[in-house]
């Protein structure tokens, strides 16, 4: 039964974090600032603010004061995301590990998932998910599929590749082309649990910049895909508020390009950032995890109250 299914997963996640002394926190669902991300639309609560699209900003504010590892399981809200893998309200696990580098967080993500699967295995069949986890760079995936280096390929070439796949004809930024190509040709083929790391700079979001083993500048983040589904997303967290302000302003510039309203900059976050300890953070979609484990065709099923 779905009710028990979710409960068992949540219990296992909490058991893992409590046993490793990560503190569970709660941050307000209603926030003063909307998400800065160009393609994540916040739901406005009139006279109050916005429903959070992720607890990222509030948790970073907490981190800047508390300084130690924290986790949260909460509902998050994103307007107009409706599909068999998407819901306008869904449940997210988000956690931050003080002093961790991204490699250590990657190892922990795998450990956490293996722990959860083991904990629920008595009542739910997880046998199909117990293969080894893989690791591959964004660059390798892109090279394998398109024979192009995603960090250096020209905008013109990206546009050609996208057009050949019937991309809707509008003005696109570099990141949009990359996303389109990745989502259409690469992501659906990732079946075994796979960590994809070293993202293009234009997709750094709130991750630090580092160098890959060939000396190319990359965003120090990873995503975990299982059976074609994006399950988790993690950053070596950026602590340079000047750099974050630049990225927020860039987002607003792209918003203007698409005729969207600009989003005021969350100055509270900019103030918190330098006080944050070195840390790595990840988020994981609980409903997608349920979908992957159960093989259910639609995540909306887990919200049936009839």
């Amino acid at each position, binding site marked *: 039964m779905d009710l028990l299914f979710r409960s068992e997963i949540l219990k296992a996640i909490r058991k893992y974090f409590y046993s490793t002394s990560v503190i569970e926190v709660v941050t307000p669902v209603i926030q003063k600032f909307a998400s800065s991300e160009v*393609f994540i639309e916040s739901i406005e609560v009139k006279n109050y603010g916005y429903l959070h699209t992720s607890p990222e900003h509030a948790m970073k504010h907490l981190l800047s004061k508390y300084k130690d590892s924290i986790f949260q399981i909460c509902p998050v809200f994103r307007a*107009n995301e409706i599909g068999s893998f998407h819901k306008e309200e869904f449940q997210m696990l988000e956690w931050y590990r003080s002093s961790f580098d991204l490699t250590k967080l990657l190892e922990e993500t795998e450990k956490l998932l293996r722990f959860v699967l083991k904990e629920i295995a008595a009542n739910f069949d997880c046998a199909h998910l117990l293969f080894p986890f893989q690791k591959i760079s964004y660059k390798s995936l892109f090279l394998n599929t398109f024979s192009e280096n995603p960090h250096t390929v020209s905008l013109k070439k990206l546009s050609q590749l996208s057009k050949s796949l019937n*991309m*809707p004809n509008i003005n696109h930024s570099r990141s949009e082309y990359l*996303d*389109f190509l990745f989502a259409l040709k690469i*992501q659906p083929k990732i079946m075994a649990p796979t960590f994809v790391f070293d993202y293009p700079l234009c997709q750094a979001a709130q991750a630090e910049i580092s160098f890959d083993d060939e000396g190319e500048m990359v965003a120090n983040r990873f995503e975990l895909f299982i059976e074609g589904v994006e399950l988790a997303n993690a950053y070596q967290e950026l602590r340079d508020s000047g750099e974050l302000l630049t990225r927020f302003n860039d987002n607003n510039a792209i918003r203007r390009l698409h005729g969207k309203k600009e989003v005021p900059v969350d100055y509270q976050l900019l103030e918190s950032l330098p006080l944050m300890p070195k840390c790595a953070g990840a988020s994981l979609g609980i409903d997608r995890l349920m979908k992957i484990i159960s093989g259910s065709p639609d995540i909306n099923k887990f919200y049936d109250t009839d």
Partner: protein
Amino acid sequence: MANYSTNEFKSGLKVMLEGDPCNIIENEFVKPGKGQAFNRVKLKNLRSGRVWERTFKSGETLESADVMEFEMEFLYSDGTYWHFMKTDGSFEQVASDKAALDGSEIWLNETDRVTVTLWNDNPILVTPPNFVELAVIETDPGLKGDTASGGSKPATLKTGAVIKVPLFVNIGEVVRVDTRTGEYQGRVKQ
């Protein structure tokens, strides 16, 4: 005409695309993490029968197509038009030209029930039942008792269709045929 946005797309919805009425078969919402959302849509062009794959920016709209499907009874053909009558008690009739039949005329048996697709009240597609029972009007003489040798021979049915039948089938016998593949399914006891 109403417009449908990508988030209203669902299988069975009839929309206009590139001037042709289409039936949506599949609609998949795709959104890379922080990227722009789009919809991958499979549509069947109701005029050509071809299946198209298209990507739309989420939020894009398509005009609805005035397409309706009716169960109708096949009445007769005058050689140029095929005449059908609605089975809803209205006795309303429509005439379809050969283009809308697209080869399915060889399965049309008088009084059989078929599905007729109307676009702006004109027939654009006639779908015969999956299985029809038709009499054999011409074939080589049957080999009596030979029900096991596995050979086949051509047979012409009363509607003009030519199919392969087992050697034991005789003129005058009624056979059951799958109209999607044109394959013989068996003899029908009269």
